[in-house]
């Protein structure tokens, strides 16, 4: 921390006075501070705002590398705000502090057989705030909707220390603007969430997953189309495409005869390719893509009907370059693609694939965001690929919320 007005020691003392010295420390050129509540968070942000210090809010840190790099003077950790404030199980809602991990929340909700119906990455470490800020969602989104459909209210601390509430604790509510929708996926650039209210669903009691295998993703396109055109309501459907061929996984939850009934229908739809029961483990493959060293990881958004064809195309593009990809694509149109650069292809291969994929998806409203990449590749990339004609409006929103640009400056789309 080296602004003209403030030394690192002064900053440490001032922040320590707010959050307590035990919860304030220096790491390199950054001060890490962990407030206990919204009030302390507000005081920290107000201090940072008045002194022009950049703040990076952090939960479990699992997705802290997503987006453009931020040089923050203050790392605001939510690690002390971990309480499940309220679980109104009869109303099927809950209120939780932003620093609570996903797994801890779900454990609490499970006491009454309920769940926030979302399957984000790294649930044991990822926190509510981080998941919401990054708008992470998994395969369950097919049936239960995106994160923004599950959030019914929020407490937000703005850069100037204003503590604002949005929404409420009831599922149906159209009073005022839905600030919580603006916050979801805003990567900590507009404010710091301190509490989130969720609507809950009954946990899926009985589930069954089946898998169909094929040499090429294109072969799975027709059965997938047929499946989604039926009146079955699978809770998750994903396509896996990689070195070992391709597979389509379908998960169904239900009561009574429902699961057997689905099995009969699925076996008809997949009569040519064949489909067999498999395990829950297949739903963890998206996360496994991140384990590979030196992979470039993309979040590709496309029309649902393009899932198989796009996966097949990307696989061919990579093969033509002698490289490999692995892809996990959800039936609602979101894919995670891992590009594995071969040593000789170096940086140019991911860059070419990204450019080609963006050109392919853009005409139909799709997009490619680079989530993770080795440093040498990342440096030359436009990570967000945002071509929205509303970018000016987004910048204006940022300017109104955070005029001094202290919250994750530059991290977001359009360098917001």
């Amino acid at each position, binding site marked *: 921390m080296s602004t003209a007005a403030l030394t690192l020691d002064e900053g440490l003392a001032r922040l320590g006075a707010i959050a307590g010295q035990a919860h304030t420390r220096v790491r390199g050129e950054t001060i890490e501070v962990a407030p206990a509540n919204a*009030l302390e968070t507000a005081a920290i942000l107000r201090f940072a705002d008045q002194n022009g210090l950049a703040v990076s809010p952090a939960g479990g840190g699992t997705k802290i590398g997503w987006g453009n790099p931020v040089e923050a003077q203050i790392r605001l950790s939510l690690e002390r705000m971990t309480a499940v404030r309220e679980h109104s199980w*009869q*109303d099927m809602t809950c209120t939780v502090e932003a620093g609570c991990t996903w797994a801890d929340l779900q454990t609490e909700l499970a006491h009454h057989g309920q769940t926030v119906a979302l399957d984000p990455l790294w649930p044991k470490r990822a926190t509510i705030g981080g998941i919401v800020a990054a708008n992470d969602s998994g395969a369950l989104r097919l049936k239960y909707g995106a994160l923004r459909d599950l959030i019914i209210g929020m407490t937000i601390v703005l850069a100037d220390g204003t503590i604002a509430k949005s929404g409420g604790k009831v599922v*149906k509510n159209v009073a005022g603007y839905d600030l919580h*929708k603006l916050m979801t996926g805003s990567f900590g650039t507009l404010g710091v969430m301190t509490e989130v209210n969720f609507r809950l669903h009954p946990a899926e009691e009985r589930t069954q997953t089946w898998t169909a295998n094929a040499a090429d993703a294109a072969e799975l396109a027709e059965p997938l189309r047929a499946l989604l055109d039926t009146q079955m309501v699978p809770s998750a459907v994903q396509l896996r495409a990689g070195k070992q061929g391709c597979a389509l996984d379908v998960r169904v939850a239900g009561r009574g005869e429902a699961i057997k*009934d689905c099995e009969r229908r699925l076996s008809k739809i997949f009569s040519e390719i064949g489909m067999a029961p498999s395990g829950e483990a297949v739903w963890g493959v998206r996360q496994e893509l991140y384990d590979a060293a030196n992979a470039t990881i993309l979040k590709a958004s496309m029309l649902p009907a393009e899932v198989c064809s796009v996966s097949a195309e990307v696989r061919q593009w990579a093969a033509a370059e002698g490289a490999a990809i692995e892809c996990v694509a959800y039936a609602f149109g979101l894919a995670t693609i891992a590009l594995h650069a071969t040593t000789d292809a170096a940086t140019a291969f991911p860059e070419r694939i990204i450019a080609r994929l963006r050109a392919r998806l853009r005409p139909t409203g799709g997009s490619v965001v680079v989530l993770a990449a080795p440093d040498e590749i990342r440096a030359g990339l436009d990570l967000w690929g945002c071509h*929205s*004609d509303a970018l000016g409006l987004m910048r204006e929103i940022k300017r109104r919320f955070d005029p001094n640009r202290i919250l994750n400056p530059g991290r977001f789309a359009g360098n917001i």
Partner: protein
Amino acid sequence: MLHPNQIAELREAVGADGLITGASQLQTYECDGLTNFRVLPGAVVLPRTTEQVQAAVRICARHKLPFVSRGAGTGLSGGALPAEGGVVISLARMNRILEVDYANRYVVVEPGVINAHVSQRVAAQGYFYAPDPSSQSVCTIGGNVAENSGGAHCLKYGFTVTHTLALEVVLPSGELVHLGSAAPDAPGYDLAGVFVGSEGTLGVATKITLRIVKRPEVVQTLLAAFDTPQAAGQTVSDIIAAGMLPSALEIMDTLAIEAAEAAVHAHYPKCGGLLLVELDGQAAEVETLMREVRALAEKNGAWETRLAQSEQERALIWKGRKAAFAAVGRISPNYIVQDGVIPRTALPQVLAEIERMAATVGLRVANVFHAGDGNLHPLVLYDRTIQGQEEIALDLSYRILHLCVDSGGSITGEHGVGKEKQQALGYMFAEPDLATMQLVRCAFDPESLANPDKVFPRPRLCADRPGPYTPHPLETAGVAEIF
């Protein structure tokens, strides 16, 4: 009054047949479904294209004329009430369904398309558009987007915002932007999510991409008659606690049943609390669950449970429910519809308190509610010809909203804040909350031209920068950590 030059510019923008300035014709637009507020607009334009909307909005921006966009005018909170001397932009002529994509399960429509027409258009392929406000046979998608309309089936299927993938919007400056996309998670802020439900205060939607849903294989509708709405309410709680998610859970009380019967002869059992449960999905599952629902109803004292035996019977049940508001006109000369939301568990206490409050001022309240999501529609019955009664009725209706907020709920579940509940919004949200919402408003509409003086408790100007930090009331009360 608009200046003749302004009128001439508007005529240029939308053509002579797209402009209304005659006093008698303007009267058609002086109010929406909330008829006790009336304002005559300066002019009404009826554009046919996005370009015409843009041209009209640019004229408004240049002359700083307030404008209010309007669909079918069925809104119940005064959202389409004109601004004094301003321009009404009626989207009624932009009523084309532009694209239907079954493979990707979406449709693209203009804002003037009627809600029910979307479902009708895709019905042959087995799809429907899920949000179904009671006015769906006349209300428009543009209006639904403005209000984030719900309906009886949003317990399971969600609201307009859940089904809105993308929007083409004319900003209050006249600039055209595209928010969201048919493909999920467009990079950038979720402005489509913020725009839906903003009650016409952020711009004019000129094209809307909506999700369509496969029609369920079977739909079963059960009527269960109880002695009290509380017993019906307990059954709702038990159904939810059993881990079921019905597509609709509706309760009507004696007065509402009486009114609906008088209007459409729905053959409802005469009872103190009528519960309507609709389950949909795959046949095997629905049958299993419906058996559980019947058992729960009987456990709570239902003396009659009746499963609709045909599609006609089912339609009649819904016709009665959806006609309930208007039907109240048959048992009372005037009435006020309210739209509070409470946590489901607060239902018995809140109903008892509403009854007590009504009795204290000598009025009757009929209750119709989407019980699954706690959305109450108390109908306060009164007679305008009795001096002072309208004021008493209005006061009662606002006190009911305060009761909803005090019970942990909201002042509106689907009708919007509009003109009617501006002050109540100030009861529900504290000043810092409202100031933060205003930041969004000012980013979209720095001149406050789009539907001004609506939603927020007092006129606010974007030049007002939020002042120095003021503590949240909950902080000063020392209970900050509970919110």
